[in-house]
């Protein structure tokens, strides 16, 4: 079944474990993050946020705050009515300018009514952050408190409080209030052909991206040109979005991000903090450093949308799935920042499937992209459901997966396919036949052991990005790429790809990154696209430069040769995916309700691996995040008052050194002829499988299906009671 291209041929630089080119800066404190910037005369900005889940602002009295010595500006919607295009967009179509224009449910940098606890109301700039904080206390806001709704299913009831006057079903990209639907085959016929039908409900929690660096932005106007020092994984997107929102041409906005403390989907495009800082700087005529506290970052930014998923699956007794139906609800908070999609049905070859997903407004904090935006929650639901079906039909879940996964020839042509190989290798390395218990819950306990697995395929398509490469007379190469290196090691990877194609050592290549005045367009570090797309542009730039050198000879004196490329490659109509399978063993303490991961095997095919060191740690870190989503993380709300209860690392119980599992990573390497040297997706792929694999292992240990993430102690003890 595997369609394997020829095994990868070794290369000189690419494929070898390589230290990051900026590792010394990262371990000496010299790496400059946004909050480490200082400009002469710099002021400090702070934001006032709503304490209510839903309220109309009757009036804001800023006079006392403005009179406080040291305060330089107080802004509200009246003085800074800036529409934040990326903050709410019809259908969550985040990169589409035309849809931003037609979006009617718009989000501003300050909103009225406020739609969640933490929605921004006003901001101040002052000589230091203490004065700015004091000034916030002096702003008097007259709120008319409104009814609120927290639960997405309740929000669709006719008598629910309305987050938007048009209703709580968030409109699509045509501004129509309709769920997102996708359909293949004929599900009615599929269910008619089934010998057994299974139905169940699963749910997942809101988990915050929780990158270690809280949001900040330093805004600085020089004449009519704005410079924003801001943590963003996409400087080009941030520039374009900010320019549009402020009514400036793109070239009048410069975005600089040299180092940033994590991304995970929280920092592409522009954020309201960028616009608020820009408005404060404009009003005061001074540079303004806007800082968000950890709590503000948790509530004011976004996290993974929480979901409710109802499945109906039809199957034959031999384990052939004949129909799948999903009805899902995604809680988007008060604004539609991203899609709210629920993935997973595409994993299965079953010809008859229908998915109907309702993106729903609530008075909770905003939902948005987090590493594999629609995947871990959807894969948890469908792969728990299918695991359950496999047990009920008396079939080993690994065999069930091999039988029902989407394969070549089922209406799709892949550039290569290795999911079966990932599952086989994983089962072998994990020793599935020994660790998995055919009778779930059969361990006598009281600490019960069990094993589970999950599998995935995830997009690894090609696309547009740019690179500029220069060589001087001394043979020094300088690569200009619009990456910011959110933590995955993109700068080093881009340098390695250039060195490989040029045939020079990495030490001969300097990389310039993270500044829109110096770097060409890059797709941005979202969608795991940097290595594939910007890396491909780097290869093309190196080829162009090599040809120039061959034609003209190396430059002499002060002249240089420059290659500038902007390729937009495709995959010849084929589907290009990465593949993976995770196998997990857990111990569940039936007296305490705790879950401990005792073994974790991750097998991935991500094409050719560019830098094995950083790639391995991307998978290991992502798998830990997946465990956190499975067992710990949640943003709980008090339904009586709409207040968030667990904002922050402590409340959401993020994994610590004491909680981390040993993740064993294996890469199956192939070169399918696309991407730079055959590279595929890595960054997001590792988080997708954890929740399903952990939950399935818990079922194998207990014989009780845990259907609601996170699988906390109370839920386990409740299931056993």
């Amino acid at each position: 079944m595997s369609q394997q291209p020829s095994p990868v041929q070794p290369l000189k630089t690419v494929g070898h474990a390589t230290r990051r080119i900026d590792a010394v800066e990262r371990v000496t404190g010299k790496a400059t993050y946004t909050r480490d910037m200082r400009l002469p005369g710099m002021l400090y900005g702070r934001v006032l946020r709503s304490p209510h889940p839903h309220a109309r602002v009757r009036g804001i009295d800023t006079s006392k705050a403005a009179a406080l010595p040291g305060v330089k500006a107080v802004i509200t919607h009246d003085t800074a009515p800036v529409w934040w295009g990326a903050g709410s967009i019809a259908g969550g179509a985040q990169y589409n300018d035309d849809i931003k224009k037609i979006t009617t449910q718009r989000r501003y940098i300050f909103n009225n009514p406020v739609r969640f606890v933490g929605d921004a109301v006003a901001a101040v700039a002052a000589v230091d952050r203490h004065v700015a904080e004091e000034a916030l206390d002096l702003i008097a806001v007259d709120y008319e408190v409104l009814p609120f709704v927290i639960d997405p299913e309740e929000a669709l009831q006719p008598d629910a409080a309305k987050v938007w006057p048009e209703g709580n079903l968030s409109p699509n990209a045509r501004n129509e209030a309709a769920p997102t639907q996708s359909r293949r085959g004929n599900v009615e016929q599929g269910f008619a052909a089934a010998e057994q039908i299974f139905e169940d409900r699963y749910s997942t929690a809101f988990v915050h991206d929780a990158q270690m660096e809280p949001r900040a932005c330093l805004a600085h106007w020089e004449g009519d040109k704005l410079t924003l020092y801001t943590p963003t994984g996409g400087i080009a997107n941030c520039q374009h979005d900010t320019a549009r929102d402020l009514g400036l041409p793109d070239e009048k906005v410069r975005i600089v991000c040299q180092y940033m403390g994590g991304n995970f989907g929280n920092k592409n495009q522009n954020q309201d903090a960028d616009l608020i800082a820009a408005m404060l700087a404009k009003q005061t005529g001074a540079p303004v450093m806007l800082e968000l506290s950890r709590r503000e970052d948790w509530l004011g930014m976004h996290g993974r949308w929480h979901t409710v998923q109802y499945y109906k699956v039809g199957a034959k007794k031999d384990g052939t799935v004949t129909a799948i139906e999903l009805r899902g609800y995604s809680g988007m908070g008060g604004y539609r920042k991203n899609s709210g999609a629920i993935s997973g049905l595409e994993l299965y070859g079953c010809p008859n499937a229908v998915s109907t997903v309702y993106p729903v407004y609530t008075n909770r904090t905003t939902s948005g992209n987090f590493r594999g935006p629609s995947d871990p929650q959807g894969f948890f639901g469908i792969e728990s459901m299918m695991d359950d079906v496999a047990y009920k039909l008396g079939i080993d879940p690994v065999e069930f997966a091999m039988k029902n996964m989407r394969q070549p020839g089922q209406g799709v042509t892949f550039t290569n396919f290795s999911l079966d190989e990932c599952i086989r290798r994983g089962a072998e390395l994990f020793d599935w036949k020994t660790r998995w218990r055919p009778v779930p819950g059969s361990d006598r306990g009281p600490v019960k052991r069990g094993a589970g697995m999950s599998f995935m395929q995830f997009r690894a398509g090609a696309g547009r990005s740019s690179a500029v490469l220069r060589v001087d007379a001394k043979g020094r190469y300088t690569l200009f790429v619009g990456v910011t290196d959110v933590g995955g090691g993109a700068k080093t990877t881009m340098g390695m790809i250039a060195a490989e194609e040029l045939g020079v050592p990495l030490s001969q290549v300097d990389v310039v990154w993270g500044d829109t005045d110096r770097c060409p367009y890059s797709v941005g570090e979202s969608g795991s696209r940097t290595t594939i797309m910007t890396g491909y542009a780097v290869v093309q730039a190196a080829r162009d430069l090599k040809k120039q050198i061959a034609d003209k000879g190396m430059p002499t004196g002060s002249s240089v040769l420059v290659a500038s490329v902007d390729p937009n490659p495709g995959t010849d109509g084929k589907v290009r995916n990465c593949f993976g399978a995770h196998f997990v063993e857990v111990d569940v303490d039936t007296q305490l309700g705790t879950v401990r991961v005792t073994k974790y095997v991750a097998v991935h095919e991500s094409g050719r691996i560019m830098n094995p060191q950083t790639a391995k740690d991307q998978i290991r870190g992502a798998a830990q995040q997946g465990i956190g989503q499975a067992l710990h993380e949640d943003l709980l709300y008090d339904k009586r008052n709409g207040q968030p209860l667990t904002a922050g690392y402590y409340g959401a119980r993020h994994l610590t050194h004491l909680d981390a599992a040993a993740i064993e990573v294996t890469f199956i390497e192939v070169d399918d002829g696309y991407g730079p040297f055959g590279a595929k997706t890595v960054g997001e792929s590792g988080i997708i499988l954890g929740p399903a694999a952990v939950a399935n292992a818990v079922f194998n240990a207990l014989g009780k299906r845990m259907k609601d993430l996170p699988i906390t102690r109370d839920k386990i003890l409740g299931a056993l009671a």
Partner: protein
Amino acid sequence: MARKPKDKISRRRFLEGTGVAIATATATPAFAAPFDSAQGRQAAPPQARTRIRLTINGVAQRIEVEDRWTLVELLRDHVGLTGTKIGCDRGECGACTVLLDGRPVYSCSQLAVWADGRTVQTVEGLARDGRLSPLQQAFVDHNAAQCGFCTSGQLMAATALLARTPRPTPPQVRTGMAGNLCRCSNYNAIVEAVLAASGSAPQTTAGNGGAQ
């Protein structure tokens, strides 16, 4: 979030309150508002300042600090040592870990005035004459910094651990660094780096595997 002035607890009062919990627990009036009413107040009261002596990365300094400054504010905003990061500013994440008289502390949860007469070491003080410390070198070699934002704190916690326990076992490393979060969740690599720097053979880097 929006606070009413009368509910406000200053950072100094809060930290002192938690630092000497018993003493202030009976002294609730100490939590009374610094400003009972903002009405008519035209000038911010001058902030109390204290002159302190301390040694930072081996250099003795005399600095006049505002009493409300935290140690991390002093380091980052007034001494220019921005290698120490603020991740949560409330003692949850460990990004701001520095050594105070050789012991790891969250510098967001220490007042600057408390450092009077004491010795502070930050990430900037680890390298000697431009040479990385063995621990820093191990962090480089083992890719222990992904985004790098927690790295300074991880390094300081590990430096303190290795000073105390030169050849730690993997569980000792994990316990010694339990207060330093990494959202890149690069925990395996960090523990590998610390073990490599100590010369201890890495056995397993696993912790409790997600145990709640």
